[in-house]
Structures are given as structure tokens and as C-alpha cells.
């Protein structure tokens, strides 16, 4: 393990990993392409890598796709920010007021175990086919993730730290701000990363059901006219966006949680 962490050895291992990844990608795409070329499967149903690349180039060149990306991201972003804010505050409140947490526990559990996506038709009835219903759907997914994580973080504070702070003279408020809040940050971050992915899911699912714009709308529209290539290229775009967002969160987390011990492979 020690020699593994030698910079040169690590660089070599990283390069090898990347070669393997590229190989796997080429193999997968190549098999797919060949299967459609030689008539093993019908490209009408599964499209093909070459068709998808052509479609992507065309759509990106046309520029209209950026409007749909912006719509989806805006919905996801609003749902994420509102859901995270409400979830974090509610999580801390429940951790602070145990009685309240006990009373609300069955309701939170029930709502949390309800597949929120099933609420989408209702949200569309209530909030229309535009932006609001997607934001509400994304919000409903994000808020519980953050609530549960923040609550768990606040409850799992190292009691030694609480005792030391009290012995050193911390007030109730100082305990919350200087011990409970910072020690919950890793839990909150884990929630934020998950929540970001779910915000995107919420926005896209909402759009797939009914919308006038957005990547989900594009997918739904393309599928409606049996344009599998269009569906696939939208999925690729979504995948890239979700991966980029996840990377952004990782960078932010690494910056904010510099104090955490390095975990190998993490």
C-alpha cells in the first residue's frame, strides 16, 4: 500500500486505469456499431454510436439544444437550492427539538418512503405544465435527502467534543454553531451530492410527463416519433451534465473538508 502511494507509481496505475477504461468504451461502442451494421439488431430500435454522434454534432451546431439544457438545469437548480435549504434547516431543527422529532418521525418516514415521482402528475395538475411543477418535483426529492442526512449528522456528533466545548465554557448557541454545525458538514455534503443527482431526475421526469421545453421534453418528443437516435443523444447530454455536476461537488467538498484524513481510493 505504501509503495502504491508513491507519486510515480500512482501515476502509472492511473494511466493503466485510463487505458482500460478507454478500451472498454471502444469495445462497447464498437460492438454496438457492428451489431447494427451487420443487421444483428435493428438500428431503428437501438440507434447506433455513429448516428448518435452525427445527431449530437447537428444539435450542438444548431444551438437550440442549449436552450433545453438551460431550462432543465434551471429547474433542477431551483429545486436543489430550495430543497437543500429547507432540508438542512429542518434537519437541524429536528435534531435540536427532540420532542418535535419524535412527533414528526412517522410522517417524515411515510413521506420519505413514498416514491415522490408518483406525485408528478399531481404536481402538474396543481402547478401547471411549466417551470413550477418541475421545481416542486425536484424539491420534493431533494428536501428529504437533506433533512435525513442533516439530522443524522447533527445526532452523530462526537460526544467528547460536546463535553470538551461545555467544559471550556460554550453556550448553547456556541455548541450549535461551533460543534454541531461543523461536524455535520460531511453528512450534509454527502446529502448534497445525492440531492444534486435527484434534482436532475426530478426536473427530467417532470419534463418527460408533460412540458414545453427541456431535455426531458426532447426525450419524450423524440420517443413519440420513434426517433431513438434523438432519445439517445439527449441521454448522452444528460449523462455528461450529471457527471460534470458531480465533479463540481467533489471539488467543493475537497476544498471545504480539507481537514478530513485522506482515504485511499476515495
Amino acid at each position, binding site marked *: 500500500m505504501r509503495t502504491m502511494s508513491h507519486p510515480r507509481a500512482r501515476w502509472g496505475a492511473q494511466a493503466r486505469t485510463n487505458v482500460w477504461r478507454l478500451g472498454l468504451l471502444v469495445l462497447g461502442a464498437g460492438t454496438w456499431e457492428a451489431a447494427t451494421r451487420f443487421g444483428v439488431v435493428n438500428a431503428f430500435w437501438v440507434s447506433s454510436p455513429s448516428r448518435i454522434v452525427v445527431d449530437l454534432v447537428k444539435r450542438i451546431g444548431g444551438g437550440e439544444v442549449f436552450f433545453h439544457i438551460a431550462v432543465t438545469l434551471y429547474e433542477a437548480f431551483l429545486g436543489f437550492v430550495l430543497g437543500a435549504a429547507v432540508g438542512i434547516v429542518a434537519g437541524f431543527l429536528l435534531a435540536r427539538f427532540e420532542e418535535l422529532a419524535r412527533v414528526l418521525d412517522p410522517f417524515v418516514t411515510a413521506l420519505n418512503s413514498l416514491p415522490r415521482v408518483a406525485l408528478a402528475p399531481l404536481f402538474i395538475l396543481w402547478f401547471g405544465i411549466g417551470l413550477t411543477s418541475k421545481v416542486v418535483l425536484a424539491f420534493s426529492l431533494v428536501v428529504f435527502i437533506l433533512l435525513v442526512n442533516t439530522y443524522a449528522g447533527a445526532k452523530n456528533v462526537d460526544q467528547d467534543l460536546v463535553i470538551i466545548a461545555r467544559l471550556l465554557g460554550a453556550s448553547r448557541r456556541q455548541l450549535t454553531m*461551533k460543534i454541531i454545525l461543523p*461536524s455535520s458538514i460531511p453528512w450534509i455534503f454527502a446529502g448534497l451530492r445525492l440531492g444534486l443527482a435527484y434534482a436532475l431526475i426530478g426536473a427530467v421526469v417532470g419534463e418527460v410527463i408533460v412540458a414545453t421545453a427541456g431535455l426531458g421534453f426532447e426525450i419524450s418528443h423524440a420517443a413519440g416519433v420513434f426517433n431513438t437516435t434523438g432519445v439517445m443523444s439527449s441521454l448522452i447530454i444528460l449523462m455528461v451534465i450529471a457527471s460534470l455536476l458531480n465533479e463540481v461537488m467533489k471539488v467543493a467538498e475537497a476544498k471545504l473538508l480539507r481537514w478530513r*484524513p485522506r482515504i485511499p481510493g476515495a
Partner: protein
Amino acid sequence: MSQTKIAISNLSHRFEIDGREVLALADISLEVDDGEFVAIIGPSGCGKSTLLNIISGLFAPSTGRVTVDGRPVTGLNPRIGYMFARDALLPWRTALANVEFGLELRGGAVRERRERARELLRIVGLQGFEASYPSQLSQGMRQRVSLARTLAIDPDIVLMDEPFGALDAQTKLVLEDEFLRIWERHRKTVVFVTHDLFEAIAMADRVVVFGAHPGRIKSVVDVDLPRPRSVTGGRFGPRFQHLYERLWEDLRYEVVRGALEPPDGGR
């Protein structure tokens, strides 16, 4: 001559464990003078830590009375510093910010408290590690930070619960010596809980031997070794040997007796 700093009289403490009452401390009476270094030694489960918790004001005894400076203990006392075997450092704070923590809670001015924290890190031998996080420090270094944090609030009384117990043997000797050096300069009142008889004799003015089940004082022995001391220096002298044998006789009986009895879990 010297004033009584801590006075404990007829103190008993009961815990409830699984609906069963356990007597953790039975009829403890002990006086600690101002500037005195008292070590408490005893088998595990003898209530040593419980006694420190009661002196600190973390909780009240079932019966009996504890006074500090003649005033009954009714809650946490800001003039008391308390150090554990676990470093209990805030992992998200640098060494410097950890040492500053107590002063920060008390609303000290940023510049002054930072200056003092820097000074204390220097005293415990951690100059150059101000910006390190606890996860980047060795266990010995973390315990030094913890010591600096305890001293930063300039306490009148320092309670120490096996502060060097989790360290390896060599690091322990070095830290004991450094603490002695600091203590001999400032002469705060120290109550030092340990399970290491060498440590107790080498450092303390007085050693209190506790028995377990229930925790009670078995004997109190004055350590009349000259100061300034070094932890390793006096260890092989005849006076040290004599004290060691005398205390070990008391302690061994309690340790063996404790080992033969079912543990209560009462600390």
C-alpha cells in the same frame, strides 16, 4: 501554610445501570492544596474518572459535598481545565485554532488569543505545526495540542484523566517530562488520574490509591522526592523504590480483588 483548593467530604455516588443501582464512589474525603499535584491511582472501575467529572461540575454527586476555593461546586467552573486520554480535538480546526478554542468561546480578542495560542504551541514543542489539522498529526502531537488547549484558558485547577495513557511508552516519557517542566514553573493545582504507578510517583506530591467496587480511598502517600524532578531521573533511586513497593502493595491487592469480581461497568 498553603490553602485548601479542593475539598471533598463524605462524597458518595450511585449510578443506575440496567435498573440496578451501582455504588461508584463510597464516602470519599480528600483535600487538595493550592498548587499541589495529586495523583489518583487505582484499578479500572474504581470511579477515578467519575470523581474528576464531579469536581469539574459535569454532574453532581449523589451525596456529600465538593468545594473549590471554599465554594460548593454547582456547575461547570470556568477556572478548571480538564484533559482526557482521548485528545478530543475538533478535527476541522487547525492545531492553532484548537488551542484558541477556549479563549474564543470566552470572547477573547482575536489577536491576543492567537498570540497566546501560538505561545502555548511553542511551549508544548509544536512550533511550525500551527496550520496542521489533527488528522495530520501523530497521537503524541495531538495530545500536546490538547494539553496546550487545556492550559490556554489559564486554569487554576487542571484535571487530567489518564492524559498520557493512550501514548506509546517513549512519547509518554517525553510528554510527562514536558508537563512536569511546565507545571513546576506555574504550580497550578493538578488532580491527575492514572493507572501507571511510575507516572504517579514520578510526577505527584501525593499519591491517592483507590480501591474498586465501590470506589473508595485505600491509602494516601506523600511523595517526598525533591523538585525539580525528571520523570526518568529519580526512578532508580532508593527512595523511589521504597515508595513504589509501598504503593504497589496496596494497589496490587485492589487490582487482584477487582479482577476477581464481576465488572459493574460503573466508572
